[in-house]
């Protein structure tokens, strides 16, 4: 309702500005978005700029303590067991961490959504079989399966993405199917059908746009989950292998030095927490911002976004 009132007086704005305004209204989400932007920039450009610095060993600076400005800005967070500065290492490790999570989320969402759309829209045998597939994947402890598969298949970035993507497919499959089952019965879909639209047009032009916001919100949340899963695998030693680094691997590399150099494990762990926290906050915001019936909470301003 506020939408119509507002736009009555002002010229119509682009979608982007509307969303930036909605983002501005929720300061937590704004911080989260800015932080994530920084992480993504680190992931893209970090290795190009800091690769040499992050791998340069300095045995005199082994386990150097953090907050020591004399050693230069790179040592601000301390150094690891081989004297490599932690801050550049965290920046460089962002690439693998983000890349694996993004890959897994992308493929699970793509496959899961496609299967969910088919399962929800078709009334044939596929509608019966596909949900079963999701149940099968859901009914086993996924991390244990990942452990077995990775141990057998050699842990590499590609294999980790595949394993994580497979375990997350059911989330999108179930959500997409449930939503399609409901949207399919709505009037505008029926109308499109009567007007002779093809199945493909109905699914992609009429159903998918309604389902997509929910799926994107879930994907944001799931990104955090997948990141934690990859970190756990790397921590257990069956994820990314050294000399490649991810944040989870860095935590595990610092574990033997816990008692005398806590910072080795602490900083990369903090990087994981801040990133997942930002994703959670952003997903909370998206749930409201992408839902036309909830959006007023942000447009009103104030702190009522519950």
């Amino acid at each position, binding site marked *: 309702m506020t939408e119509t009132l507002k736009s009555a007086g002002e010229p119509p704005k682009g979608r982007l500005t509307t969303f930036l305004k909605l983002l501005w209204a929720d300061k937590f989400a704004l911080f989260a978005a800015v932080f994530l932007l920084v992480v993504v920039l680190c992931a893209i450009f970090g290795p190009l700029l800091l690769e040499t610095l992050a791998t340069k060993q300095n045995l005199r600076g082994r386990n150097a303590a953090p907050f020591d400005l004399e050693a230069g800005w790179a040592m601000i967070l301390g150094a690891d067991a081989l004297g490599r500065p932690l801050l550049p290492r965290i920046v460089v490790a962002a690439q693998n961490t983000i890349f694996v999570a993004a890959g897994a989320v992308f493929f699970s969402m793509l496959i899961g959504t496609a299967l969910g759309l088919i399962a929800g829209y078709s009334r044939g045998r596929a509608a019966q079989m596909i949900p*079963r597939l999701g*149940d*099968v994947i859901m*009914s*086993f*402890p*996924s*991390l*244990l399966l990942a*452990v*077995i*598969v990775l*141990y*057998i298949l050699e842990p590499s970035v590609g294999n980790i993405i595949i394993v994580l993507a497979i375990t997350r497919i059911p989330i999108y499959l179930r959500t997409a199917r449930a939503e399609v089952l409901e949207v399919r019965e709505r009037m505008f879909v029926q109308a499109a059908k009567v007007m002779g639209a093809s199945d493909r047009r109905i699914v992609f032009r009429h159903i998918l746009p309604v389902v997509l916001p929910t799926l994107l919100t879930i994907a944001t949340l799931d990104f*955090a989950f997948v990141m*934690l899963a990859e*970190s*756990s695998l790397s*921590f*257990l030693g069956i994820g990314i292998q050294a000399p490649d680094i991810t944040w*989870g691997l860095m*935590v*595990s590399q610092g*574990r033997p030095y*816990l*008692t005398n150099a*806590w910072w080795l*494990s*602490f900083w990369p*762990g903090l990087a*994981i*927490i801040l990133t*997942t*926290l930002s*994703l*959670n*906050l952003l997903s*909370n915001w998206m749930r409201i911002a992408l839902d036309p019936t909830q959006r007023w909470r942000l447009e009103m301003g104030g*702190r*009522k976004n*519950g």
Partner: protein
Amino acid sequence: MKQFIGKRAIASAVSLVGLVILVFFLSRLTGDPTDLYLPIDASQEMRDQFRELNGFNDPLIVQFGRYVADLARLDFGQSIREARPAIDVVLQGFSWTLSLAAITMTLVTIAAIVIGSLAAFNVGGVFDRITTFFSLIGASAPDFWIAIVAIVIFAVNLHWLPTSGTGTPWHWVLPVAVLFIRPFGLILQVVRGSMITALSSAYVKTAKAKGVRSRPIIFVHGLRNGMLPVITVIGDQAAGILNGAVVVETIFGFPGIGKLMIDSILQRDFAVVLAAIMVSALAIFIMNLLIDLAYALLDPRIRY
């Protein structure tokens, strides 16, 4: 009802069979356990004897046939590592994990429901905002990192709790506390969300108008109807503890099924890996069934 359980059981059994076949053949690809178990200077005769004894000489398909035949007699094979029946090893580990999961989930459920309901009663209040913020942090933190930090603080620096192992009740405090955090954050959010919906419904307004006090409104009128989505998440999280326990058990040296599985895979103790998969799949199946029954119990409109 019986039909429903039967259908479920068949579907689960089919997928379990597929999984067992897959893992059986894949695990054999990792290599021959002989080199891992015999000393490096063992003679060729000893090696041959070890292979013969454990049946590694036969073609894979024969080994698989023998495994299935044994399975039909409920014989899950021998653990090479511990030289006793694999199922005994697995059940022992499973009972540890089950106690860990049961204690954690009981605490999580009680805490999340009480705190979440109270937060939902006054949306946007101070209590609500504080709990939302902390539950978000809890849901975001990697458990292995929390475990490490907790060990440094409480075991190494303060000497309040043991670092790892089992034996006294104190050994349980850190593993339970670490496993507690993430499910608590997630379930609290769901309780809060679904209680907000339940408390804004017409019958709650009626109860309020009739002058019912707020505690009965929250815990009697609201809770029962807000519980359905909560139960789903509780089930997911309980199954997740079987997963999450892998990490936590490894860090705390807790002899549960997760640690057992990792060790068995690394040491090529195939019989234990397969038995562990079957036992945990059975546990998850039973739990999913219980959740569906709880649905029907809470909401009389749901029938199977």
